[in-house]
């Protein structure tokens, strides 16, 4: 009867591979977690501060030849009152990004606490230590820069986590953070040159955060 005229019969398309990973962002208030996330997903930087109430959630899809990478980013408000929502960001995440403000040493100090809390919920996620506001940091006293850089390196060794200094405003090392996360999760060979000179935007990852317990 009314059979549709022969449609083109092509082989059915191959199924695309899909890689889903959840990444949690934690750290003190106003270190730039939401900014980093928005910058990475939407490439927008807004000077205005907006407090995160609870957890922000954004998704980014990276389309490769036959594979899709889907980053689900969970950004937890830095205020203490949201600590009870930490499981939303921490549980189920393959990588946790710990952020501190390079211009405020006390935020680096709180990383200990954040790390302890997260580790209690999820001890298999790859930790990544990220110092933010590098653009403001380079304007500060070089002794201060030395001190912070060296402390951060110490922290990263203890946490066994890659260390990245970044600037959301200037777009420095933003993509690298998430590529390192992916590489560490899947144990991929990464050959991006490290940056280890104090004063430069540090990028140290080779011997840190390699999955051993997975």
């Amino acid at each position: 009867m009314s059979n549709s005229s022969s449609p083109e019969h092509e082989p059915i398309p191959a199924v695309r591979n899909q890689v889903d990973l959840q990444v949690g962002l934690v750290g003190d208030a106003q270190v730039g977690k939401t900014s980093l996330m928005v910058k990475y997903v939407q490439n927008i930087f807004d000077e205005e501060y907006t407090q995160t109430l609870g957890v922000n959630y954004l998704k980014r899809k990276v389309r490769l030849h036959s594979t899709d990478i889907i980053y689900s980013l969970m950004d937890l408000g830095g205020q203490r009152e949201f600590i009870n929502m930490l499981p939303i960001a921490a549980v189920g995440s393959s990588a946790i990004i710990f952020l501190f403000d390079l211009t405020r040493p006390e935020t680096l100090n709180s990383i200990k606490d954040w790390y302890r809390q997260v580790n209690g919920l999820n001890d298999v996620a790859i930790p990544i230590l990220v110092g933010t506001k590098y653009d403001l940091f380079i304007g500060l006293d070089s002794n201060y820069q030395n001190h912070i850089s060296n402390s951060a390196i110490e922290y990263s060794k203890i946490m066994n986590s890659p260390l990245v200094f970044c600037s959301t405003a200037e777009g420095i090392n933003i993509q690298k953070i998430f590529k390192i996360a992916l590489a560490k999760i899947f144990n991929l060979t990464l050959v991006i040159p490290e940056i280890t000179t104090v004063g430069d935007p540090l990028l140290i990852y080779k011997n840190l955060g390699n999955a051993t317990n997975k």
Partner: protein
Amino acid sequence: MKFLSITKHSSKKRLHESQIPDEYSQRPTKRLSQGSDQLKPDSNIFTTNSNDSVKQFTHSPHSSSKGSKISITKHKNANLSLKTNVSQTSTVNLGQNIFLPTPISTPTKANILYDACGEQQVQFYSTSSPDNNLDTKKRLVTRFSSLNLNSLQIAPHPIFEIPEIVDNIIYFLSKKNNHSNMSAGVTKQQIRKVSVSSLSQHQNNNNITKRIISSPLPFASSTVSIEGSFKDNHLFNCLFINKLWFQMTLPYLLKNIHFQNDSNIKKFINISGKISNITSTTIETIKFHKIHKLKQSELQKFPHNLLSSNIKSIEFYICPNIIPPTSWYPILQNLENLIIPGNKRLNDQQLVKLSNHIPNLETLDLRACENISDIGVVSIALRCPKLKLCNLGRHKNNHLITNVSLLGLGKYTNVETIGFAGCNINDSGIWEFAKLNGANIKRLSLNNCNQLTDYSIPILVGFNYFPNLAVLEIKGLSLINDVRWLVKFKLWKTSLRSPILIEGGDRINDLMKEEENKLKKLNSFIALQELSTWVNADDDDDANDK
């Protein structure tokens, strides 16, 4: 015992039934006349005796419908007959004096009589849930004994007297029953609403109704068989509440009839005359389940007045010796489902004849009907353009169904489900069919079609000739070895979140599992390679690689 006693009470009440609906139907009239005629003082109504008030209603311009007049006369007669007992008559007066002047005011409803009735009503409708506490029962018993015949005329809760509401209740009950009895291939039935006017036509048949109710046993046994088990069948219980409920329920019961043994059919044929006298409903779904002994000549006696063009579905499930009688053919123009699995009597000649009468057929199930061949199937395909499902699966006489049937269905119908299990079809038949009708196919059963090879189904599926396929049965196809396309199709469908089931029996399922693992490994390898390339690729942080 409890049930019987209730039936007794309800049948007592039934004697006075005719008065009750009228009382309620009068109410709005009463209210209207009060509202429009303010001059008439209420006290007048209080002082009038019952007969006067009845007269007043009779002369009221609003109560001009024929039915109510008739029953009001009955009302009078009832009063007359009751006047032999003085105390009873006074009760009537009391009841009406309280009820009539202020029919909607709440204080009236709070009187003892009403309370008693309220509980009585609970007793009536909770027959299936015997969780009334003993105390209430005792109280009820005493109250019942104190009530005389007349007070019983005060109805249970009024909403159970409103035909539309009763109809709704029964409608939902029947839906529930239908749902639990639903079998494959039977589609949802559009249940026709019973109009109130058609009910009032049957008022004249009260006597017959009473006779059937008062001798419930023979009818009961046959009705039980009609619709499954007695215990679960609330619809059946509704027959015994009162006349109104009986009249409302019967059509629903009659619409879907299901016979499970021979004697029930004979009983049903015997009482069918009574049934057709009290209702004009005709059967929509008729089902015979494993009826072995019944002879075709006995089936010929099946009452024709219960059959009309309303019939939508006929099922003869494994009834080897009976087929739909020729005399039914002329009323089958609306038939949608014809389900006759496992019938050895049905042959091509009958099917060709039948095909002239069933233009709306959607489902045809002729599983294991060994005497059907290409001739019958093609005649169906030619004359039933709406056919959606056709099952011809079989174990014997495989050679009778060939590519000819397949192509007939493909060319003349938009069939969605075909069952050709064990039929004599081959690659070229399937290819042609896929070209003709592949786009409509949702379910395909080709079990034990041993001539099919790797060059038919796997390739057809791989090149998307069956874009809507959801179920594919290919058990026992010994010539199929290359399952790569099947696996790819399955993975592709899964990734689109459309349901897909490929049932290939042990051998093909194992092959597919193996192939799937291989494919997944390969894909993971490719994915990791791509990820590595990406993480090491140069990117400018300022320009997202979107």
